[in-house]
C-alpha cells in the first residue's frame, strides 16, 4: 500500500510540475492538408512551424497533424488540439474555412488563423500571400525566354487565386512579348504527380517551351527536363533540385515571418483578429534565385519588376487593362482594388478559352 501511495503522490507531483511548466509554454497547432513531405504547399507551412520552434525554443510547443481531409475530420482535429491546450491554431487550407469558424465558436479563448479564406471572427484571423506578384516576375521571364511564343500553364482549380496568377503572368509576358500566347490546362488537383506530368506533356506537345504550374508537385519539372528545351518555375517551394534548367526561378511561400509574428502576439497578449494579405515586400512571397539559364538582361528586367513591387512603386494590375470580352476594367494608371482581386473570376483581354464552370 505504501508503495502505491508513494507512486501516486509522485505522479501527482510530476503532474503538477508538468502543469506549471505548461503554463509558460505557448502551444501552437498546425493542421495540414497534405503530407509534410509534399515538397510544396504543406512542406512550406511545416518550414514555418519549424521556424517558430527555432525562434522561441522552450517557450513554445508545436504540434501538427498532416493529411487532414477537409470537412468533419478537420473539425475534429482542430477541436482535439484546442482540448489539448493549444493557444493558437493555424489551419492551412481553404477548405478548412467553415470547420475553423465552427470550432472557434466553441473555444473563444483559443486563437485561430485560417489561410486563404475570407471568414473571420473575434478569434479567427485570415492570412494569404499575394502570389500574383511572383507571377508578374515569372511572366516577365517567360515572355522574354519563349521562342515558340507559346506558354503553357497548369491550373489547379479555377478559383480566384489561380485565375489571378494566370492574369498576372499573362499581362507581364505580353508586356515584353506582344506575340505571346497562353495555353491553359486544368488539372483539377493541387497535388497529383501523374496528372501534373500528363498536363505538362500535353502542353509541351502543343508547342509550349515555358511551363508555369499552380500545382505543388515536381512532376512538371521532370517532364520538362525529359523534353529538353523547356523551362519551368518552382511552385510554392523552390524546387531547386531542377535548377539551373528546366527550373529557372520559383515562387516560394515563406510563412515563417508571419507565423513567428503571430505566435509572439499571442505570447504578448496583443493578438487581434486581422486579415493579412502580404506580398514580396513583407517577405511572404519569395522569388527563388533566377538561374544562369536566363540571360543577364532578362534577369535584370525580372528583378526590376520584383523590386518595384516590393517597395510598392508598382502594382501588378495597373491599367489600362480590359477584360477578356473587351470591356474596360482598369483605366490608364488605375490600380486594381483588393476586393476585385480577391474574387477575380474573369480573364484579361488576350487570353483565349473559357474559365471552366
Amino acid at each position, binding site marked *: 500500500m505504501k508503495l502505491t501511495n508513494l507512486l501516486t503522490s509522485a505522479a501527482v507531483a510530476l503532474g503538477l510540475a508538468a502543469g506549471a511548466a505548461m503554463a509558460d509554454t505557448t502551444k501552437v*497547432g498546425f493542421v495540414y492538408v497534405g*503530407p*509534410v513531405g509534399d515538397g510544396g504547399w504543406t512542406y512550406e507551412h511545416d518550414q514555418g512551424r519549424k521556424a517558430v520552434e527555432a525562434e522561441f525554443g522552450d517557450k513554445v510547443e508545436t*504540434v*501538427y*497533424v*498532416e*493529411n*487532414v*481531409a*477537409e*470537412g*468533419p*475530420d478537420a*473539425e*475534429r*482535429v482542430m*477541436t*482535439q*488540439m484546442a*482540448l*489539448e491546450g493549444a493557444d493558437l491554431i493555424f489551419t492551412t487550407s*481553404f*477548405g478548412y474555412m*467553415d470547420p475553423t469558424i*465552427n470550432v472557434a465558436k466553441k473555444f473563444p479563448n483559443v486563437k485561430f488563423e485560417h489561410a486563404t479564406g*475570407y471568414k473571420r471572427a473575434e478569434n479567427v484571423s485570415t492570412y494569404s500571400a499575394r502570389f500574383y506578384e511572383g507571377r508578374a516576375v515569372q511572366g516577365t521571364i517567360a515572355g522574354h525566354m519563349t521562342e515558340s511564343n507559346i506558354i503553357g500553364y497548369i491550373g489547379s*482549380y*479555377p*478559383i*480566384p487565386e489561380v485565375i489571378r496568377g494566370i492574369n498576372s503572368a499573362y499581362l507581364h509576358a505580353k508586356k515584353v512579348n506582344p506575340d505571346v500566347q497562353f495555353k491553359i490546362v486544368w488539372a*483539377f488537383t493541387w497535388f497529383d504527380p501523374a496528372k501534373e506530368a500528363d498536363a505538362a506533356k500535353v502542353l509541351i506537345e502543343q508547342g509550349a517551351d515555358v511551363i508555369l504550374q499552380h500545382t505543388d508537385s515536381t512532376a512538371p519539372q521532370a517532364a520538362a527536363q525529359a523534353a529538353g528545351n523547356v523551362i519551368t518555375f518552382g511552385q510554392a517551394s523552390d524546387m531547386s533540385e531542377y535548377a539551373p534548367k528546366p527550373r529557372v526561378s520559383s515562387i516560394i511561400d515563406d510563412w515563417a515571418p508571419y507565423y513567428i509574428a503571430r505566435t509572439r502576439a499571442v505570447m504578448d497578449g496583443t493578438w487581434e483578429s486581422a486579415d493579412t494579405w502580404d506580398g514580396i515586400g513583407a517577405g511572404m512571397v519569395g522569388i527563388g534565385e533566377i538561374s544562369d539559364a536566363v540571360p543577364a538582361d532578362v534577369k535584370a528586367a525580372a528583378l526590376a519588376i520584383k523590386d518595384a513591387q516590393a517597395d510598392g512603386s508598382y502594382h501588378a494590375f495597373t491599367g489600362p487593362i480590359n477584360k477578356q470580352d473587351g470591356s474596360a476594367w482598369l483605366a490608364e494608371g488605375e490600380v486594381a482594388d483588393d476586393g476585385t482581386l*480577391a*474574387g*477575380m*473570376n474573369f480573364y484579361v483581354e488576350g487570353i483565349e478559352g473559357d474559365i*471552366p*464552370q
Partner: protein
Amino acid sequence: MIRLEKRPQPSRAWSMATPLVAVIATMIVGGLLFAALGKPPVEAIRTIFWEPLFGEFSFYYRPQLLVKGAPLVLIAIGLSLGFRAGIWNIGAEGQYIMGAIFGAGAGLAFYPSDSFLIFPFMVIAGAFGGWIWAMIPAVLKTRFGTNEILVSLMLVYVAEQFLASVSLGLLKNPEGFGFPGSRNLQSWDAAHNAELIAGTGMHWGVVAALIAVIFAYVLLNRHMTGYHIRLTGEAPRAAKFAGVNPTRLVLFCLGTSGALAGLAGLFEVSGPSGQISIDFNVGYGFTAIIVAFLGRLHPVGILLAGGLMALTYIGGDIAQSNLQLPAAAIQVFQGMLLFFLLAFDLLTNFRIAIGKPEVA
C-alpha cells in the same frame, strides 16, 4: 516440414476468432513499427485504442466515433449483401458522391424555403443518386456481361469530376466570392441533418446505419432474397437449380448498396460536412470494403468493425498530434488490419500440419 492441409469443413471457431487475432497481430506489428520510428509503442497503441474511448477528452471523442463510423457501417452493410453473392461493387465511393450531389442539389433547389418537407425530399434524392449510379454497372453487367468491378470503380473517378464541376458551377455558393463549394447546409435549418440530441453525435445517418444493420440481419436470415444471396455465394450451381434469377439478384444487390452509399453521402453532406466541395469525399466508400470484410460480411460484425475502424481513425489523429507519429505510419497500421485479417482467414479453411502428408 510445415504445410497447409485443407480442412474438410471450414472452421467455425477460426472464422469467429480471425478478426480478433488480426487486431492483436496488428497491435504487435504496429507497435514494432512505431518503435522502429522511435516512438513509444505501448503509448502509441494506447493512444489509438484507449484515448478516444476512456481518455481525458472521451466526452468529445465518443460522439465522434458515431459520426465517423456511421457512413462506414451504412455503406459496408450494402456492400456485404453483394459480396456474399459474389457481386463486387467497388465503386461505393462514387455512389456516395452522387448521393451527396443529388441530395444537396435537391435541397438547394428550394433555398431558402423552410418547409419541413425539404429534408425528407433530400433523403429520397440522395438514395436515388447513389442507386442510379450503381445501376450503370448493374445494367451493363446484366445486359452486356461487363465486369462490375471495373465499371463501378471507374465510375468513382467520373463522379469525382462531377463533384468538382458542381462545386465550381451548378451548386456554387452565390455568396461565396467566387470560391468553389456550395452553401453550408449547417446554417440552413430546413436542410440541416443536425444532432438529434446535442452533444451525442447521434444524427439521422447514425439512425439509418442502425436500421440498416437490423434490416440486413432480417433480410439474410428470414427472407427469401437473403436466402438467394447466401445460396448464390455459397453454391452458385445449386442456386441456379433453385430458380434464383441472377439478373434480379445483381440489380437488387448493386441497387441496394448504391442507395445506402448515396444515403451515407447525403447524411454526411447535410450534417457533419455541411457543404458540397471539391474534396468532399474522403474515402469512406473504399474503407467500407475493409469494414465489410473485417465484419465477416455479417451485419453485427460490420457494426463492430465500423466502430473499430472509426476508432483507429480518431485515435490515429490523436497519436499524430500528441506523439507526432507520421500520417503514413497510421495508414500502414490500418492497412495491416486488413492484411492480417486476410492472412489469418487462411486458417478458416486450412490447418497447419507438421510432418509429411499421410498417404491416404
